[in-house]
């Protein structure tokens, strides 16, 4: 179970029996557009507020994941979820609709893997027969809460990232068909003193590197043990910093395929996303869509998903505080 200092190795190998992804129009137009289950053309999803649109996506993803697992909502023991909104309302309100026992998490954009690691832990220790893990974000709710209302039309520097509109969910069970969750590493909060909320990738990169190094140390592995290592939403600036840090720490990431969900989901040359993507849904929809497809087909044997989160609040930014960051890693293996 506990391996090293901050990692878990799941000896009962919990299975991700189903996944579901819901995204907005910009994500649907991106290079991974055909890997998502539902693509909405309307950012508002017919709702009268962005917040309602966000939680509608979460509910859709959750219901679809349960349906694809061949279950009904009553068979789900726990829902583990979180999002970027104040008081994580999107997840809590979705849990109200689902009426499933619920753990609310706040890990900002690291929530995707934080919830998956906890779901795996619960299932691995016999605490549940089926756990639903999921997270969501919406471009307009995140802009409104963390920066400026979109209608204000405020300028953004090229280091800024574009919050993904979407929701991803999965069902974890002790047995079944599908990729297995084999290990997880829980990250420390790392703060390198960055204060610019328009450059979150740079703030989060050291946290991603710290967690990946901890994972290698705890499980006595290296980059060569993974077909792919993906970070959550470092985007162009953060990814380059992570590359440099690995080189400085003598970890050869060329032995694996090292990529970032924030760079995979959009075509930065054609889409107006500045440095790349961010948001809870970024790593969730890329992992539960594209990466899961490849694991199911056996095109990838073992991957490490390292979801990165910036634990800032609008208030701490206004008060000039630096941005603490975290990253959680989950290792997923193909069974085909």
């Amino acid at each position: 179970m506990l391996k090293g200092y901050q990692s878990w190795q799941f000896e009962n190998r919990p299975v991700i029996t189903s996944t579901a992804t819901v995204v907005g129009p910009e994500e649907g137009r991106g290079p991974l557009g055909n890997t998502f289950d539902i693509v909405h053309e309307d950012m508002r999803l017919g709702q009268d507020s962005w917040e309602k649109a966000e939680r509608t996506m979460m509910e859709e993803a959750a219901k679809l994941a349960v349906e694809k697992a061949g279950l009904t909502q009553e068979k789900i023991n726990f829902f583990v979820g979180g999002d970027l909104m104040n008081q994580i309302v999107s997840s809590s309100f979705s849990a109200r609709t689902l009426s499933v026992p619920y753990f609310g998490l706040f890990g900002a954009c690291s929530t995707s893997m934080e919830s998956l690691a906890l779901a795996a832990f619960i299932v691995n220790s016999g605490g549940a027969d089926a756990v639903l893990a999921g997270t969501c974000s919406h471009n307009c709710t995140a802009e409104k809460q963390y920066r400026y209302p979109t209608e204000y039309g405020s300028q953004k520097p090229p280091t800024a990232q574009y919050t993904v509109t979407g929701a991803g969910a999965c069902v974890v069970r002790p047995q079944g068909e599908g990729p297995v969750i084999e290990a997880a590493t829980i990250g420390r909060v790392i703060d390198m003193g960055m204060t610019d909320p328009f450059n979150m990738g740079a703030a989060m990169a050291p946290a991603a590197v710290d967690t990946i190094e901890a994972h290698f140390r705890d499980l006595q592995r290296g980059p060569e043990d993974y077909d792919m290592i993906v970070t959550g939403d470092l985007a162009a600036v953060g990814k380059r910093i992570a590359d440099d840090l690995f080189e400085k720490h003598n970890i050869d990431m060329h032995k694996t395929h090292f990529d970032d969900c924030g760079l995979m989901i959009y075509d930065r040359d054609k889409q107006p996303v500045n440095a790349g993507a961010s948001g809870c849904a970024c790593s969730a929809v890329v992992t539960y869509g594209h990466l899961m497809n490849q694991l199911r087909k056996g095109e990838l044997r073992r991957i490490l998903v390292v979801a990165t989160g910036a634990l800032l609040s609008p208030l701490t930014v206004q008060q000039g505080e630096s941005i603490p960051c975290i990253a959680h890693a989950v290792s997923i293996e193909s069974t085909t």
Partner: protein
Amino acid sequence: MLGQLMFDVLKLTPAHTMSTLVVLGAITDGLGLYEPLIEFAGAGATVPITSFGNALVHGALAELKRDGWIGVVTGIFEVTSAGISAGIIFSFLASLFFKPKG
């Protein structure tokens, strides 16, 4: 260009940038440098937002000369009243027709 530098180099927020430019306009006029700037730059210096600072101080100084110290308070809005009233009236009209979602 000055505003863009304040954004990108000094990392100021839009609100801070705007307020700073207003204050800069006011200080320049207080030092008697804004009129020469208008003569040099023409329309470039008479459009918002530095011109607003200039107008505030200009009005206050004009009424100070005419009515004494009380003019500093009443004069601030003398020259700027058109801008402020337009702001209030058009925001009111916009709020009747649009519902912002943020």
